[in-house]
């Protein structure tokens, strides 16, 4: 059986990512409906996949062929669209990260899904990457605690990767007017850092929580020009350093998570966003100086997150609402703590 997917949203994350990714899943899913907020881009995407298109969310949520609602709208609308899906009787939801903008909202949303038994997968693709699963298995087999986790992102614009998963580019959306950013202004700086931690850090902070699950203390946080952040956490006796820089051009995107333990140092290097050339590369350096590089799995996290939803739909896996709730609370506590630290301006 192929479950019909209705995608709310028409940005690059739909056209260049989720819509084509569904074709990688061995027939479990088929795109049946795409909706936009009136831009007309949904029709252009739907036409490529023989799906229907609409504006707004009502027609999509009323479409009898939609078994799964994929919420790929702007992050500020995720909560509203999850609730609308539940209200429309939908019981299988894929929601792009972040699930919500506050921990309280995330808690409520997960509780509302749990109350009606709705299946919910949040698209934290790195958490689903087979390489991450392998890395954590390797670490659990080692003797010794995690002493430090470092995350380093140096990202180029995503549009170079969009071109690798679409035949033709979609018509550009209207230009987004962004006022000049003054990172020397503590309020602006704090707002940017909070948004980046909640929206970008959410890729990897669930991985950090996977390793060192405890309430994190923000040691420092600061903005990095032109757009980025640098922060440190203390959690569960370990130190975490998370640095991200977003650049207007330059080298291939770097996306690396390193874990230091008593018995080994493990490095997981994720591929750039959008592309499908396998999952992350995991390298282990052990106490004897032996380097082990695992083969790169053909499946990446984007594919695996949809397969996880298929497993839930088939009843092969259990819904872990508490994990979703805890991941969201962890990320948003760090986002709030980082913003407060930047506002205080103690570390520049």
């Amino acid at each position, binding site marked *: 059986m192929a479950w019909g997917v209705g995608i709310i949203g028409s940005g690059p994350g739909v056209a260049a990512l989720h819509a084509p990714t569904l074709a990688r899943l061995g027939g479990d899913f088929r795109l049946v409906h795409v909706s936009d907020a009136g831009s007309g881009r949904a029709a252009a995407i739907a036409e490529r996949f023989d799906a229907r298109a609409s504006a707004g969310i009502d027609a999509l949520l009323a479409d009898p062929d939609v078994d799964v609602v994929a919420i790929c709208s702007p992050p500020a609308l995720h909560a509203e669209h999850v609730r609308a899906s539940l209200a429309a009787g939908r019981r299988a939801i894929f929601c792009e990260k972040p699930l919500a903008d506050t921990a309280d909202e995330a808690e409520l949303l997960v509780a509302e899904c749990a109350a009606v038994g709705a299946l919910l997968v949040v698209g934290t693709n790195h958490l689903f990457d087979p390489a991450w699963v392998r890395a954590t298995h390797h670490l659990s087999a080692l003797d*010794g*605690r995690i*002493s*430090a986790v*470092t995350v*380093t992102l*140096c990202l180029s614009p995503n549009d170079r990767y969009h071109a690798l998963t679409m035949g033709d580019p979609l018509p550009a959306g209207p230009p987004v007017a962004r006022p000049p950013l003054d990172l020397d202004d503590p309020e602006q700086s704090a707002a940017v850092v909070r948004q980046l931690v909640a929206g970008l850090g959410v890729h990897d902070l669930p991985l950090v929580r996977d390793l060192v699950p405890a309430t994190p203390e923000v*040691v*420092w946080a*600061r903005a*990095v*020009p*032109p757009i*980025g952040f*640098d922060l*440190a956490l*203390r959690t569960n*006796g*370990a*130190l975490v*350093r998370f*640095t991200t*820089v977003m*650049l*207007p*051009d*330059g*080298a*291939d995107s*770097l996306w690396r998570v*390193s874990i*230091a*333990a*008593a*018995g*080994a*140092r493990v*490095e997981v290097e994720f591929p750039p966003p959008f592309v499908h050339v396998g999952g992350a590369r995991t390298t282990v*350096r*052990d*106490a*004897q*100086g*032996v*380097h082990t590089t695992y083969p790169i799995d053909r499946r990446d996290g984007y594919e695996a997150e949809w397969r996880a939803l298929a497993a839930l739909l088939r009843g092969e896996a259990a819904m872990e609402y508490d994990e979703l709730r805890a991941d969201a609370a962890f990320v948003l506590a760090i986002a709030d703590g980082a913003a407060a630290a930047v506002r205080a301006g*103690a*570390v*520049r």
Partner: protein
Amino acid sequence: MTGVWTDLPAYRAAVAELAPRVRLGDGGEAIRVVGGRGAWWERLDGAAAYVIDEPDPAPAAVHARLAALDVPIAVVRRRVRPDVVAEAGAEPVSPRHVVVDAWGGRTDATALLRDAVGWARVLAGGPLSVSARADTAAATTMALRGRDGIGVSVTRAIGGGVGGALVASALGSRRVEVRVDSASPLAEVAFDDLEGRRVRPVRRESAERLALRRVVDAQAAGAALSDLRELAADDGIVQPDE
């Protein structure tokens, strides 16, 4: 011909590899090789130049005193070799941030952190100051600030047995990444930009020969070496109160 005052086998081999420019010998005209364990600074005496091999971190007061020494001094830090430093500067990089992650055994932990700070200084292009620091039983992380306000983050975790590994990266449109690992004498330096990745040639001269050669060259040119000043800067970041 310059005499080299040492009983360390690796340096005796380096003397042989530099013949006829140097030979074994002691006295006031010689280059004295000083092991860096303990109070190495007390052994900087009676020679015309020095090589300090893997010095333990020294207090600021000692560095202040040593700054008055007016002889060539090469400091051997195998994790921050000057020829590898030169490779890391082979292409211009305008970093937006610098990160250094180090992992190694407990006995060498402070020197490892100091050398991680050394790479941070190199990649940031100048002196650093400490903005914040956090320590646990098995890790340290530091927020530093470099020239022109560039941010630097250095993390050192304790693990493994003897030795360890270090990865230093300058993040920008062009990146440079340096990997040093005690499991190999060969450091890796790579640049990444729109054109792809370029790996610099590995440096295969022994650390001991390199140090002696630099001192001999400095003596011949009447030039100073900045090694001790850089060591003082890095030690000062790691243990500012001592």
